[in-house]
């Protein structure tokens, strides 16, 4: 299935985010980050937020992190963000 999907994406020159299996991340400066297509919250403190993805995890580290809004597949985080990192 995944093979067919990536083949179609290749053939038709489609952007990767239409498959909805990869996260879509939008960042505004270093103060706001918007992540779509996550799979849940793994860890949250005022200095780090770990989000589960379809493949691996996303670690956002910084200071005074606040989750503005959390939906089942989407989060908006504000704070002083230092680092956004993909992990296996």
């Amino acid at each position: 299935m995944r093979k067919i999907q990536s083949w179609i994406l290749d053939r038709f020159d489609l952007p990767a985010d239409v498959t909805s299996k990869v996260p879509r991340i939008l960042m505004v400066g270093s103060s706001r980050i918007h992540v779509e297509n996550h799979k849940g919250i793994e860890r949250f403190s005022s200095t780090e937020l770990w989000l589960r993805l379809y493949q691996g995890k996303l670690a956002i580290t910084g200071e005074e992190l606040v989750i503005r809004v959390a939906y089942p597949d989407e989060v908006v985080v504000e704070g002083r963000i230092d680092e956004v990192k993909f992990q296996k």
Partner: protein
Amino acid sequence: MSQNHLPYKIKGTVTLHLTGPLLAELLDQLLKANIQIFNIRWVDKQKLELTISLKDFYAIRQYLRKTNTRMRIIHKGGFPFLLMRMQRRKAFVVGILFFITMIYVLSTLIWKVEVEGNERIPSQQILSFAAKLGVYPGQWKPRLPDQEEFQNDLLEYFPQASWVGFRMEGTRAIITVVEKQDIDEKEKEGEKGPVDLVSRRDAVIYDIHVERGRPMVEVNDVVKKGDLLISGAYGGDNEAGEEGKSRIVGAKGKVLGEVWYDSEVVVPLMNKRKVYTGNRSSTILPYVGSWMVRIPFLFSNPYDKYETIQHKKVLYLGKWPLPFGWVEEEYLEMKWAEQRLNQSEAIALGRERARSDLLSQIGPDGKIITEKVLHPRVVSGKVYIRIHFDVVEDIAKIRPHLPQTTPSRNDG
């Protein structure tokens, strides 16, 4: 999608402080249960603050229990809580509602009736008659008399007024009065004083009726404009010239003089006028307040040129008119009818017009003796006619009595 807080504000939100060992786990479970969470932040190392909608508040309890989390409500916001608070302050709510109702009710009353434009008719008289007709401070606006009717009634009651208007400005009723100019009266008053009658224009005297005063001209005399016709001084021993012993009585009478008028009339040979074709159609339009619901494509009328007649059907509740009803609109088709005249017809028409014009000009005593059409000519589709009228009319005009000679006067 992400920032639409408003519906949650309306439905109500709850802000919680949570403490427990598995808070991140709890967040994850809540998201999986399709619960939306706002403003998640750590208050300190143990305490997590978050906001959820009121609807979800009852759903999260099982998750709290499962993760062994303790909860404290720190803020309730939004409309449901506002309502709840308002229920507790009943008097306040009643006060607000009472205030709004009072403003509404009071603004449907007339607070002041004003009269403007009157000089001689006393305002008090107008106000008291208006009150009898139902226009007074404290009257409920829907019970006001019909505007047109009211104006007519006032006009009938005050014959000194030539026009009466009535309008509302918010809670003020304004009656506008236009009074008649009493020129006739002044002239009548003047007649009683010491006046002479003089000629208004050049004429040949046709007839003289003297009621008071001494005639200074005779029939068939030619007079010029401003000549003395009847003198207001009367009773001297001699005839004219000796003013010394005469009494001043003021002249009164009629002097008919023969005068001439030239009228210029233009009559177009082609007359265009509108006539009804007899075709008619009608539609019914609802209205609310003063707004007529006109649906442009549905009720288009079928005619090019037409005249509209509106019949308003007001619905009554008991005896009070409701603010809505319907209007029946009737369209009468019209067309231009052309009427062609030949020259003699045009001249006859022009003569008729000129005659009626003149008759209204020369007053009730006047009459036309002869009339003569002078050189009619046709220029660009119009007939220009000059008509010469020989007319008898009252040529007397009032002038204050002036002694013509000023000898030493010793009258008293």
